[in-house]
């Protein structure tokens, strides 16, 4: 099944420039969110991420490989969808404890879940992904269908990350991956 929104399909994603992921996002997931076991710490170093002397940012491919290493080395016994959802949750939990994350997270309880979903493009930009196109369609007071054009992160990873952001906004979310395509995915978000 392909994505329903014709306007979303018609747009050309801005993938020409390779996104760069800020080191605080790496810090959020791999230092503050997860406590890497020795094999994972070694694998992250091999992929180019050194937590003790990080670069300002990293190519998205480094991010992708590091997340993939974490999937197998931290949650190897789980299915892809379970593992990536947990990793997504760890990302938001950890990022909210970084300096930049604290600046953003302090407002979440005040703005509420609907505005968290509205601000998803802003949060993606904060994570180094300003090019990601997000469309949110209201299906009711507490239901949104959210289409995200992201080819680098698994849908469950973003679902897990959004779940925690909504929890910080004092909601109890249920997020299903509704659809996936080569260009992105669609989430059904309820709270």
């Amino acid at each position, binding site marked *: 099944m392909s994505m329903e929104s014709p306007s979303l399909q018609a747009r050309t994603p801005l993938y020409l420039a390779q996104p*760069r992921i*800020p*080191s*605080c*996002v790496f810090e959020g997931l791999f230092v503050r969110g997860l406590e890497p076991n020795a094999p994972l710490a070694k694998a992250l170093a091999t992929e180019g991420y050194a937590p*003790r002397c990080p670069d*300002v*940012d990293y190519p998205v491919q480094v991010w992708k490989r590091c997340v993939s290493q974490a999937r197998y080395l931290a949650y190897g016994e789980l299915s892809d969808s379970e593992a990536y959802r947990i990793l997504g949750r760890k990302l938001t939990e950890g990022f909210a404890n970084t*300096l*930049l994350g*604290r*600046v*953003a*997270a*302090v*407002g979440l309880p005040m703005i509420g879940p609907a505005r968290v979903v509205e601000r998803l493009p*802003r949060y993606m*930009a*904060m*994570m*180094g992904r*300003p090019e990601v196109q997000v469309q949110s369609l209201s299906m009711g007071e507490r239901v949104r269908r959210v289409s995200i054009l992201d080819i680098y992160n698994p849908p469950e990873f973003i679902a897990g990350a959004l779940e925690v952001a909504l929890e910080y906004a004092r909601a109890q979310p249920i997020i299903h991956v509704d659809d996936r395509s080569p260009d992105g995915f669609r989430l059904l978000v309820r709270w």
Partner: protein
Amino acid sequence: MAFPPRLAHLATRPVVVAKLVPTYSRAHQLDEEEAVQRLSHALQGRLLPSLLDEAWTAMQGKSKRLDDEGLLEKVATTLRDRPQRPGRVVEVTAGWSAFLVLADLEAGTASEAARRVMESPEGRQRAQAGLAEVGRFLATELTRGR
């Protein structure tokens, strides 16, 4: 610039760095030498006068009994014996976080994504609140003496 010029002569960049560096180095998990270097670099430009401005406002608000001359004397007394005595380590709140991100931007060690966040209307609001909070901390550090 609202603060008197003498405040800048007393609370020089090395003095302000000494007060902030323990919290800065802990927040970044850096050794002190590197933290001093980065923070000194961050305070080379407009951040230091903005911080002194906030510190001066906080001092004036706190010590209603003292006039400006009296306040400056209190700062001079505090800094007389050991001007670069390290400041207290404080818990990094959202306000401190915003200030430390500003410092990283000034030092050139923060990402473009951080710049985008801090340049948004909400980011500016948080930055201002952060400056005020760290200004209050600095005011306390500069007036702790007899």
